[in-house]
């Protein structure tokens, strides 16, 4: 034990005057009495209490001396040996696994209690800050000595549905931080990649081994070759030490009508994936529920949306529409993602003309000026170069092998995005926007280039239609929390989408094509100009579901917890003074 202010031991010098004052204080007053012999008779009958009465002065003096000792020790602020007296950054893990019940209370409650104990131990002498971590690090309070601010910050930390991301802690450790600056204490159940934790972060591990089973992956898709049917895929993980037999109940719709009950035997660890076919694959919300009551409830359900069939309506405008029409019909017959229409199209597929349409894929634009560019003479020699790597229009296409015969010199309007160009900078594939209109121009004559016979032709048409309608990626049925989702949008940058979670009345708006990272489990409903889209958000995190990570252990050095010893000593001094006051009162008033 060490003392923060040993100089206060001089307070013991007050013992001498204290004793002197005490002796003066307790000296009884002399009272003359007439019937002294009667008083003697009274007290001779009370001799059994005489010993206590004789020692009462000694007791009082002893209590006073003890009280002074307690006050002195409180002033010196005794410290536990080993606690490095530094400022603290206290990080509390509030990831999904911290919702797990551990002996009747959640791990987050235990973490908050541990943090509260540590903050109380600071005694206002040191600065501290409080942060929470899940997917990312969020400061709940700045560095302060105010215990109330810090305790309020701890209380504000709410449980989340997020997985723990060790990389989030990188922001907590400045690159140039030395170990002497401040201590970083992470209070967590250790369900994380321990090797990713910075060695300067001290871990206080809470929680004990708990049994849990949960979904770590799940998907529900229409079977393209079997109309009306759907395929269910899921994967379970278990922290049990034994095989567990349970059921997965699949329900559909807002009334949770039971569609299928699947008996499963769950092995310890991450299980192999399982696939099932649903005869009646109705589009809409689906829920897979595990029939087990375990430590963590969040991962016992998997929420999914079986997306409805919504083909992109494509109209062909061309003198020779045969190849263009069949490129559409190829996808209409198989995946059903495209359909060919003659009116009310979402996308117009044109060759040799500039169509008057909101969304258009234009092959071989004619010479002259239009809203999508000023086209000149043909280019002699073409060699395509990809300008935007991994652009969805070029997905699965080896565009650099195409001849691009009939490509024209073109002067692009402002704001155009060149996806592929000739070596002499002539744009070959580009996207252009004009207010509400958008077009993808493929600067070639497909007939002269014999592009109709290329395997990339229908692929390019499919990609182009999907890109214009904002459907570069099919929307998944279930998305893990912590990941982002590409929203179908007509305008990549300026589209506004209204988001509603679990049919909440209050919706919020997001801008752009990316929604995420997703933080809450539930059915997420997105609404924009392309229509209404939904998906389920689930935990799907093996490290959170398995709950027990034996590889993480407490690494924190000694740290003072609970109320400071000086406070306890002060309380003891008050109690002793109170006891002495009672004794004194008894002496004064009997």
């Amino acid at each position, binding site marked *: 034990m060490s003392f923060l202010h040993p100089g206060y031991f001089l307070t013991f010098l007050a013992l001498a005057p204290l004793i002197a004052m005490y002796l003066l204080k307790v000296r009884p007053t*002399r*009272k*003359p009495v*007439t019937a*002294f012999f*009667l008083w*003697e008779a009274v007290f001779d009958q009370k001799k059994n209490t005489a010993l206590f009465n004789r020692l009462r002065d000694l007791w009082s003096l002893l209590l006073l001396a003890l009280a002074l000792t307690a006050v002195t020790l409180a002033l010196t602020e005794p410290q536990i040996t080993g606690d490095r007296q530094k400022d603290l950054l206290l990080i509390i893990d509030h990831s999904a696994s911290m919702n797990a019940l551990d002996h009747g209370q959640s791990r987050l409650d235990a973490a908050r209690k541990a943090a509260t104990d540590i903050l109380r131990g600071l005694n206002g002498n040191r600065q501290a800050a409080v942060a929470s971590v899940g997917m990312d690090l969020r400061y709940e309070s700045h560095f302060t000595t105010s215990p109330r601010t810090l305790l309020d910050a701890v209380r504000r930390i709410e449980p989340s549905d997020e997985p723990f991301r060790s990389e989030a802690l990188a922001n907590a450790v400045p690159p140039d931080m030395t170990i002497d600056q401040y201590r970083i204490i992470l209070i967590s159940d250790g369900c994380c990649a321990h090797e990713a934790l910075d060695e300067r972060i001290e871990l206080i591990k809470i929680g004990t081994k708990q049994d849990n089973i949960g979904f770590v992956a799940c998907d529900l898709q229409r079977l393209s070759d079997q109309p009306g049917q759907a395929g269910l895929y899921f994967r379970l993980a278990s922290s049990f030490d034994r095989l567990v037999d349970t059921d997965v109940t699949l329900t559909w719709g807002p009334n949770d009508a039971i569609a299928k009950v699947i008996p499963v035997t769950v092995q310890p660890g991450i299980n192999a994936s399982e696939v099932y076919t649903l005869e009646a694959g109705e589009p809409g919300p689906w829920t897979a529920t595990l029939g087990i009551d375990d430590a963590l409830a969040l991962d016992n359900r998997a929420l999914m949306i079986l997306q409805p069939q919504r083909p992109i309506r494509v109209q062909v405008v061309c003198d020779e529409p045969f190849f263009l029409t069949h490129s559409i019909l190829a996808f209409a017959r198989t995946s059903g993602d495209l359909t060919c229409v003659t009116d009310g199209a979402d996308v117009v597929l044109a060759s040799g003309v500039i169509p008057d349409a909101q969304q258009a894929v234009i092959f071989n634009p004619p010479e002259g000026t239009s809203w999508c560019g000023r086209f000149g003479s043909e280019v002699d020699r073409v060699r395509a170069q990809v300008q935007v790597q991994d652009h969805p229009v070029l997905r699965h296409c080896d565009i650099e092998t195409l001849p691009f015969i009939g490509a024209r010199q073109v002067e692009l309007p402002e704001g155009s995005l060149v996806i592929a160009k000739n070596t002499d900078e002539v744009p070959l594939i580009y996207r252009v926007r004009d207010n509400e209109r958008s077009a993808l121009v493929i600067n070639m004559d497909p007939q002269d280039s014999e592009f109709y016979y290329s395997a990339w032709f229908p692929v390019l048409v499919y990609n182009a239609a999907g890109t214009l309608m904002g459907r570069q990626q099919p929307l998944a049925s279930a998305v893990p929390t912590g990941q982002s989702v590409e929203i179908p949008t007509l305008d990549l940058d300026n589209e506004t989408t209204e988001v509603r979670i679990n049919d909440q009345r209050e919706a919020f708006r997001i801008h752009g094509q990316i929604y995420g990272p997703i933080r809450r489990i539930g059915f997420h409903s997105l609404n924009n100009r392309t229509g209404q889209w939904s998906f389920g958000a689930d935990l799907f995190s093996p490290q959170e579901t398995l709950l027990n990570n034996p590889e993480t252990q407490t690494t924190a050095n000694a740290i003072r917890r609970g109320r400071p010893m000086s406070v306890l000593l002060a309380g003891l001094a008050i109690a002793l003074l109170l006891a002495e006051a009672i004794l004194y009162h*008894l002496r004064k008033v*009997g």
Partner: protein
Amino acid sequence: MLLTDPAFIRRLETLTLLARKVLGGTLQADRKSTRKGAGITFADYSEYSLGDDYRAIDWRVYARLDALMIKLFELEEDVTIYVLLDASRSMAAKFDYAKQLVAALAYIALHSMDKVVLYGMAEDLSVITRPTLGRGKALSVLTQLEAAPTFGADTDLTGAVHRLCQWHKKRGLVIAVSDFFMPQDFEEGLKLLQWHHHDVFCIQVQDTEDQRCDLKGDVELQCVESGRVRKMTITQAEARAYEQAVRNWNERLRSFCASRGIGLVSTTPQVPFDTVIQNILRRGGLVS
């Protein structure tokens, strides 16, 4: 109030008048002798024998019984009143009051032509006034009584009675004025007085502070007479026990006096002295 103060003497005069009215004009009236003689109050009949006064023969009885009977009358004789005034230090707080009582009794006695002797009593007897007779000596007695001091370390009633009986063989009325807080007991002394054929009357004067305990907590009790000191812690229980002890002591005195035919009046300085005297007179005088 000084005993020689005119106002005080006027109150004594009032008491004297009251004594005459109540007791038939003289304090002698209540000092009945067991001897029969020439008085005015009928006492008994007796057979006539040679030498008896013819005037005392009751002829009406002779007419009915045919026997000579004479009427006997109570003998009225002068009385010596011995006053033992407790002058120990325990009486310090109520000594003036006790003096007023003694002064009143002495004044009435002198006006009744009784002989009065006043003694201060502690562990010894101290003469306040020698035997005095006649109303003309009243002022002198009051002056000497007023000058009487407290003295001694303790009250020894038995010793005081021994000395009194040695000094005065003639029996009389002994009035003891004291708080009767006597560690050496009061019973022996009172018995001794009766054994010497004295009529005894006790006036107990106790202050309310003597009877009640307002002390609490740690105190050093000091005996006002002996000076002994004892450190004590007084709680509510001890205070009650003390008050009960005082009540028991006073009850013991009352019982003893009642059983021995000794008159007793208990009073406190809060009661005016003339009220106490009036009560004594209205009860029939200094009789038990």
